[in-house]
């Protein structure tokens, strides 16, 4: 019996450390049951600050389980690189850039996806993170 189709999550940051740490935090807060695949695509290919389209593509392919891939990006070139890849149809079918805060959105997306939510519901959970006021 094959594994059920789940939404994969990709975290795109200017920094490899930020992307991996946010992935760890989201996985940790979603733990308790099975956790969906989460891949970090942070920093440039040579380890600097910036965005690597190759890392984004590799991460998206890694987490693709057939139910769509939700991408969260932090700033500037991370957002633009994902958008450019989407326009060019280079990402797996069903890939979507979520309009959400990076850390809070990542936690919400991983928790929702791990509970078996489809891509639309994962996106809604992540986007809802914008409505949580802190002050």
């Amino acid at each position, binding site marked *: 019996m094959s594994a059920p189709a789940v939404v994969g999550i990709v975290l795109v940051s200017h920094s490899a450390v930020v992307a991996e740490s946010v992935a760890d935090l989201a996985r940790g807060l979603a733990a308790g049951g099975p956790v969906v695949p989460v891949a970090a695509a942070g920093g440039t290919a040579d380890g600097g600050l*910036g965005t690597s389209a190759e890392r984004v593509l590799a991460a998206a392919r890694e987490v693709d389980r057939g139910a769509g891939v939700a991408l969260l990006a932090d700033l500037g*070139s991370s957002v633009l690189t994902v958008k450019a890849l989407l326009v060019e149809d280079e990402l797996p079918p069903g890939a979507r850039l979520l309009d959400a805060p990076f850390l809070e959105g990542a936690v919400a997306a991983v928790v929702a996806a791990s509970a078996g939510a489809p891509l639309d519901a994962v996106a809604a959970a992540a986007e809802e993170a914008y409505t949580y006021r802190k002050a």
Partner: protein
Amino acid sequence: MRDAEFFRRWMTAAGAAVEREADRLTELDSPIGDADHGSNLLRGFTAVRAALEAGPAATPGAVLQLAGRTLISTVGGASGPLYGTLLRRTGKDLGEAAEVSDEEVRKALYAGVGAVAQLGGAAPGDKTMLDALVPGVAALSASYRVAADAAEGGARATVPMLARKGRASYLGERSIGHQDPGATSSALLLAALADTADAADAADPAGSA
């Protein structure tokens, strides 16, 4: 008419201009950006040259699409997806023809600039590369040289602007008084196109489209 070789020469000339001006681009990017515009573009255009030497891009559209794809994958900063989208969309618009007219180039670049505006969500006046590209492309109906001059004027006109997009926008009023590095490199790109056209037309006056 312009063939694939014309567009390879344009990309080579753009790469040479970026190499020549890399330090200046990075200097412009220091007070209002993250001081990597010159080095990022240099890495990107070095990869473009290698890709064009290795790749079998046989049509104008294929040359620009390969160059754009290479910029998106190698630059690492916002200029990668922005310039990559400019060249890819322009290349797609040129289609699969072996030769294209200057009018077709003008229309394709217009579509390319539109794609950049859509991707970045910016408009002229926001102190971005569009401040050079939009007047430049608008002047293409006159000539490549007039377009290059218009882009250069557009880049200089970014000095008094308040940045409303990208990292410079976080600086607010402190972004005023600095020329935008992206508008500056955009002007270099159109100057390289004008130089390429001048050289082609001088070599073959009858062949100018």
